[in-house]
């Protein structure tokens, strides 16, 4: 809400009608069925990354590298798809998806190894791997994976039909990746709330000392969290290149991996919350494009909104926490159980 308010003021200072701009930003993109379906298509990669990040953050593993894992998923997925350009069959697509997913997990295995073996801070290593991943992708589209018949444009050849995700609903771009994302939400929710593994991850996040004394294998848990997250982010990447895009291009991610960090927090690290948060984030992306077209405002507006959102979230969380403490501190015998 605060974000909206500040957004409106921002528009006003830019000399645009704030209400009209907000309308263009938040309502126009989803005013028809196609818009709604696009929302789902845009939300899917963010959702996949954010559910993966939720596992990490629940375990207090600060993986900032969903972006890099996403890019690697897209890159290796594309490489596989191009290698199988002439192959036809139902098996091609699963192989491509698996390859992308494995690449994402592999990219996440690097910080896992560095953290468990060399005690390296995962925040810094994952960030560095994001930059390395981006440069590898750029290298690939300018070099080995460039379409020989593409007039030297930095993009790959179009994938074969066998390596492309089918459209599920006519007239839209809804692809099975959206379904996979929803499935991932369900599975991660089950993992975190119903299994002992999920319990161990949560304990590790809340109190590493207690996890150590309880005898949980902390290194193994860090590996699990990072590999799962990397796999999901990689899947998101490969689903993007084999789905809506259909080839490898330099801009396969407009910062989905970073946006997913915000989404994970906005959804309180809970898979269902993340589902809604990812829709909001998708709306921000679409709204950003919409106001660029309609109002001539820069696309970077989306980034401003994202940052604001996270800041307000953090500040509000704390303020709400204070209020609860304040209320409970008055009567004498009220349990200190704080509802979130």
């Amino acid at each position, binding site marked *: 809400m605060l974000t909206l308010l500040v957004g409106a003021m921002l528009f006003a200072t830019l000399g645009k009608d704030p209400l009209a701009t907000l309308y263009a930003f938040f309502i126009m993109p989803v005013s028809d069925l196609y818009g709604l379906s696009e929302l789902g298509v845009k939300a899917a990669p963010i959702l996949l990354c954010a559910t993966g990040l939720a596992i990490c953050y629940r375990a207090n593993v600060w993986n900032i590298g969903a972006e890099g894992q996403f890019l690697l998923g897209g890159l290796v997925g594309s490489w596989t798809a191009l290698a199988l350009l002439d192959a036809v069959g139902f098996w091609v697509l699963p192989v491509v998806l698996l390859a992308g997913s494995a690449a994402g997990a592999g990219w996440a295995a690097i910080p896992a190894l560095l953290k468990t073996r060399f005690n390296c801070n995962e925040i810094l290593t994952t960030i560095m791997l994001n930059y390395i991943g981006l440069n590898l992708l750029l290298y690939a589209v300018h070099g080995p994976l460039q379409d020989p018949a593409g007039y030297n444009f930095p993009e790959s050849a179009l994938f074969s039909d066998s390596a492309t995700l089918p459209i599920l609903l006519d007239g839209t771009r809804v692809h099975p990746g959206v379904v996979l994302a929803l499935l991932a939400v369900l599975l991660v929710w089950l993992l975190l709330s119903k299994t002992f593994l999920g319990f161990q991850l949560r304990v590790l996040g809340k109190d590493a000392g207690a996890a150590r004394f309880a005898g949980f294998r902390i290194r193994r848990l860090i590996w699990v969290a990072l590999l799962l997250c990397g796999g999901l982010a990689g899947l998101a990447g490969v689903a993007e290149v084999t789905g809506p895009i259909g080839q490898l291009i330099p801009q396969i991610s407009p910062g989905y991996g970073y946006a997913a960090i915000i989404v994970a927090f906005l959804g309180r690290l809970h898979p269902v919350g993340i589902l809604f948060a990812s829709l909001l984030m998708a709306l921000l992306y679409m709204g950003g494009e919409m106001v660029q077209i309609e109002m001539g405002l820069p696309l970077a507006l989306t980034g401003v909104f994202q940052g604001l959102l996270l800041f307000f979230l953090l*500040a509000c969380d704390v303020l709400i926490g204070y209020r609860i403490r304040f209320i409970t501190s008055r009567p004498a015998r009220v349990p200190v159980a704080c509802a979130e």
Partner: protein
Amino acid sequence: MDIDLIANILFAAIRTGTPLLLVALGELVCEKSGVLNLGQEGMMLMGAVTGFIAAFHTGSIVAGVLCAILAGIGMALLFGLVALSLNASQVASGLALSIFGVGLSGFVGSNYIGKPLQGLGTLTIPGLSDIPLFGRALFSHDIFVYLSVLLCVLVYFFFKRSRVGLIVKAVGESPEAAQAIGLPVLTVRYLAVMFGGAMAGLAGAYLSLVYTPLWADNMTAGRGWIALALVVFAGWRAERVLLGAYLFGVASMLHLVLQSYDLALAPNLLATIPYVATILALVAMSTNQAKVKLHTPAALGKPFHSSD
């Protein structure tokens, strides 16, 4: 490899290392007080864009630098409000600051992409710069380079000699104990965070006003993050930050060396070298945990709840 090439690489390495040195010094002071501010990238970008815009309109580098420093401090205050006053997670707040800075700088600077700006000349130190071989590499830089070295010396003596430096260290080791003996924990941390912001702003201005000089989206290219790694690499010591910054500068200039051997690698692969070097440096430093723990401010990243 001939001597000229080495001198060239040294010259370029010092130039490239300077913004890293500036940010890392700021973060060093900040972390010494026990605050982990991951928002360096965002603060740097805001400094870069604000500095560029100010200099573009006033035509004055000085005005640009001042505005950049103010922008950095402003961003740092935002972080301080959330992470220090409201006691939100420092890691999350820092990330938010970086994401916010990337977005806001891109937004503010969208009309200035590619606009030209008159850069800053060099300040050649007469006499010294004429020293054969390395005279030019060491003594014919712009004023920022000398300033950054001076700041490094100041930070070194600040922690080595001054009472205030001692207070900062004490607050970073145990804010509880510091409060118990009557030290103003929150004030010290705010000032340290603001210093970090000012230095990041200055570093940003160096990039957009002197180093390139122009404004482009995300032009810091992860230098804020590398600086964070640099502080770890340097074991929270100012003199090692200086050394580390120039080493990274050399790593970034490696493509010059490779070219001299006719080893033409794709530019995108060359661009990964600083990041790979950062990871390797982290591995080298972090492996010896006992040593790292000895120098890490004990309360780093932990929120401080004043009792009551």
